[in-house]
């Protein structure tokens, strides 16, 4: 090979390095820009009355109290439905299910569900929970819809976490005469907990930000009260943000930015916790 040619190759090689760094910087600076833009618009609007006031037609008086309360109740119901079902389905598919055509079918099916657009889950929730089950646009209808949406995330995370548990642990438990369920509950699940927890937190973070399916089931209502039961109407923070974003007045845009600061902060904190737990668990599980 000629010397000039090889120099050119080295040049191209290091040029690509800087191209890679540039692309990374572009992607991350969009995130930084977004955070800066939101904070510079909304930070001054954030105060106690913004958090504690009821929604209002006057932007300066409007607050996110009902949206926050609705979001928390909605999440609690969603978690209560999705977490136990997701974990049990994950355990069954990984520990119990036989590896036959049915297992393959269920696996394709779950990977498909994870890829169904969230707005389609909204249509499902609208027809099944809101109309057929006559739950109306209530908290519980929203929770069921979101639960179906995050179920694939929890199932996949549970399966991966269980798969990472070394089989020597199971063998030791069986060797002591434990039954399958005893082994699963006392040995496999505790070792897999870190991975499962990561999946649950990521699923919650996803549920917090979901807007489209809730809009489709009719949650964009003026709700000047805090929901007290599962059959009550509700509003949530992303919906309140969407509502303010679509108004023409600048004062409502400021409100939207202030709401977004809260929503974004919660999401980023949840994701950081998930990454932290996953990191610690990986170290622990790789014996």
């Amino acid at each position: 090979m000629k010397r000039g040619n090889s120099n050119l190759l080295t040049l191209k090689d290091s040029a690509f390095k800087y191209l890679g760094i540039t692309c990374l910087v572009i992607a991350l600076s969009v995130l930084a820009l977004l955070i800066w833009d939101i904070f510079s618009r909304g930070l001054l609007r954030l105060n106690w009355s913004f958090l504690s006031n009821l929604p209002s037609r006057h932007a300066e008086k409007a607050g996110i109290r009902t949206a926050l309360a609705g979001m928390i109740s909605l999440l609690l119901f969603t978690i209560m439905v999705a977490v136990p079902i997701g974990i049990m389905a994950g355990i069954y598919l990984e520990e119990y299910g036989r590896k036959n055509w049915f297992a393959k079918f269920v696996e394709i099916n779950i990977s498909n569900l994870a890829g169904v657009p969230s707005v389609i889950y909204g249509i499902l929730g609208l027809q099944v929970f809101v109309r057929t089950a006559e739950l109306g646009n209530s908290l519980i209808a929203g929770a069921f819809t979101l639960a179906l949406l995050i179920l694939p995330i929890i199932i996949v995370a549970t399966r991966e976490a269980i798969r990472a548990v070394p089989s020597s642990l199971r063998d030791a438990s069986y060797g002591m005469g434990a039954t399958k369920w005893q082994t699963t509950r006392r040995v496999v699940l505790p070792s897999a907990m870190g991975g499962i927890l990561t999946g649950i937190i990521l699923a919650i973070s996803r549920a917090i930000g979901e807007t489209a399916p809730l809009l489709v089931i009719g949650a964009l209502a003026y709700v000047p009260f805090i929901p007290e039961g599962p059959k009550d109407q509700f509003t949530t923070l992303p919906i309140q943000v969407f509502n303010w974003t679509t108004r023409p007045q600048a004062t409502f845009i400021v409100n939207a930015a202030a709401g977004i600061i809260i929503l974004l902060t919660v999401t980023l904190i949840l994701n950081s916790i998930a990454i932290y737990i996953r990191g610690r668990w990986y170290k622990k599980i790789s014996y």
Partner: protein
Amino acid sequence: MRAKEKMIELVMLLCSLLTVVTTAAIIFVLVKDSIGFFREVSIGEFLTDTQWTPLFSEKHFGILPLLCGTLLTTFIAILVAVPLGLIIAIYLNEYASRKISGTLKPVLETLAAVPTVIYGFFALQFVTPLLQEVIHGLAGFNALSPGLVMGIMIIPYISSLSEDALRAVPQSLREASYGMGATRLQTALKVLVPAASSGIIVSVILAISRALGETMIVAIAAGQEPKLTADPRESVETITTYIVQVSLGDVPQDSLEYNTIFAAGMTLFVFTFLLNNISFWLRKKYQNRYE
């Protein structure tokens, strides 16, 4: 004891069957209510009419304008995400140290974790005014701005999954290439990318499917005008936006206008369903190639 174990197993089986029931229910709901729609509008009209005006007095039911809006925003997003995502994947895999790529990957993944309503706000309030400074004739609602923002959002789908695929290429192939005196770039482009191609294709397909189904960014920033146009400066309407628009309006339930959302949803579902299945099939087929 045995009875209890059997009971638990049965309950867990039922939980996993719920996922099958969910898919069946989605298909059932979409098909059943689309039938109501197609009883009044022929499939030919639906697929070939170039206007979509179900909410106007002169009604047309051609899905093409909505499909066009959906494909246009998705195309812009993919144009951003594929080069950026792939270059980042190669950089993280071949150039960055393990420690740096281990830190950057999760940070990059937060791009996909930001609620999309926030991206919608950002596209409408920040990106569009910024682009209007440089692009003449850019409408307040347009396909370009949400497309670009959506492209940034789906970068992690491509960068993370492609990096995983690149990492799965056996070390021996890398060493053989370096042994022949190849540079990192030559190794990456001529050995690793071809070897990891199926994984990379899967990542791109999943990103496309994600972009097709994205709702809030386009609902907020792309507008509500169903239009057959390839001009990214114009306002368009996507299938997802239309579904939200009808849900927010006061169209009487079970009317023909209302049933349009099921036909539109069905169209979207068919697209994402096909893409997801292709990617699943590809992943299964090539998963164990190097083991």
